[in-house]
């Protein structure tokens, strides 16, 4: 269990896929929390200045934590709950000069 996760969930973890890589997470936590616990504090790079962004407001106001949830499109990681086998695409691959991930 990650050192940032303090809950003793009393249930087995589920698998979610973050940029294709399986990660342990627990139902009941938000996608944002699961990503932070798994060490993904960077959720995307901004389109213009290519700066990293993570969780900011944590309550659905700022839209800085937008990630792509397979089948649903762009969602706020802080307002989306973990479900088994969901696939999350972050924008955390560092963009190259062309703006495409390297």
């Amino acid at each position, binding site marked *: 269990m*990650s*050192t*940032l*996760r*303090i*809950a*003793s*969930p*009393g249930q087995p973890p589920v698998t979610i896929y973050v940029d294709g890589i399986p990660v342990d997470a627990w139902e*009941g*936590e*938000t996608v*944002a*929390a*699961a990503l*932070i*616990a798994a060490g993904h*504090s*960077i*959720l*995307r790079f*901004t*389109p*213009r*200045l290519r*700066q*990293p*962004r*993570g*969780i*900011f*407001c*944590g*309550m*659905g*106001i*700022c*839209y*800085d934590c*937008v990630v*792509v949830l397979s089948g*649903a*499109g*762009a969602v706020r990681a*802080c*307002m989306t*709950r973990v479900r088994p086998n969901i696939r999350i695409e972050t*924008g955390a691959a560092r963009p190259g000069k062309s703006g495409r991930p390297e």
Partner: protein
Amino acid sequence: MESTDIAIVGAGPGGLAAAAEATRAGAQVVLIDENDGPGGQYFRLRRSGVSGPVGPATRTMELKSRLLKEIDSSRLRGLYHTSVWGVFPGEMLALERDGEIDLLKFRRLIVATGAYDRPVAFPGWTLPGVMTAGAAQALVKGSGVLPGRRVLLAGSGPFLLPVAEELAAAGATVVSVLEATRPRAWLPCLARIWGRWEQIAEGYHYMMALRRAGVPVRFARIVKEACGGDRISEVVTVAVDAQWHPLPGTEERLAVDAVGIGYGFLPSTEITRQSGCTHHFDELRGGWLPVHDHEMRTSVQTILVAGEAAGIGGARVAMLQGRIAGVTAARDLDYRDASTTDRRLRTVRAALTHQRAFADVLLDVFRPRPGLLELVTDETLICRCEEIPASQIARYQTAWPSDLRNWKGVARPGMGLCQGRICGRIIAALVARQTGQQEQQLGMPTARPPVKPVSMEALARLDVQAEQYVLSTADQMRMIRDSGHRQDAGGSVSA
């Protein structure tokens, strides 16, 4: 298209109290909230398996369950995980849930949309690991995940204390709580809070809990800058004078992996602003606020407000206002006879006056001081969505001094996915400073649907009848066109 007697937007303390009164009076209520259940931010459900501190937090949860029991659930429909993205003529709310759009017709609307942490811009505030105090609390309490191992909390106001307690109890090292005011500034207010033992005891509880946890609370110091490569690794703090002007040479550096910033709250007023309700500017209670009468009616007959969206005042004020709004709305629809409601409202109103006065003292003591704006450098991003630095805002303002609205259209600050919720007040403060005006002289920012992003695909799927309705006036056509622009902004994120 569904219809209801009373639609309540926001299931926090204000919305739940309104729902309790309205359902018990006999009205059918639809309660809408973006979260997955009732409670809002104040009554945030602790994740099972996450043990938390006892004390005020426990009492808060008791309060929530009492409130939920008061609701006549046979008359309540809760629409959770659902965003309200617009209010349309004909008493209609536009909803979005998991990419699906729906419309809801109401006879009365109670706006109890709450508040969010007041954003404060400083160099590095966009770095991952820098978040609001509310975000830090939501992570640890709602999900059982620490925002970091070494966390600094900074800002002003009583909210920092329970967040610090929560983090420390969860095992984080809270390296410091920085409170921008100094105790000396509180002295003139002591007489005004004399006798408020419950609240004073609450404050004392938190101070003692932090002392036991070894968390230092430092006064008259703020976060000046967050540093790091791809995430925060260090924070620069600085001492401030009584007006929060940073004092050169007092900088200190601290190694941290997360920072929670909390300078009080701003009200979520998009719904009343786009509904044509009259607003006035009240700096103390959070800026542009819907004008309301003592029965919580706005200037629009069918719309009422309750809680933080009517002006920052805390959960106690919100619950009392929610009760008044719930009773008023039900009475308007003839669900209660006027004599019963008047008696009941008298006691609630007396309690409200008492709580409102206390809330105003706290707002005054911890109000943000002008020196805070000095943290902004030319390079500091102000609009986080559209990535616009302070220098560009100053440049546009110089080029088009009398036309804030138009240059905003060109430069796009406040036009991104957050719709100005984060940067709006900061831009207004910067422009006001540059032009030597008061913030309210710049006018109230408009809020157009969609106030939360919706996809064009979902709009296109609206059923034909509803579509004709929505498209029936030129005004509404413009709204749809606006939503197209917003979708562009969304596309750049999700592409």
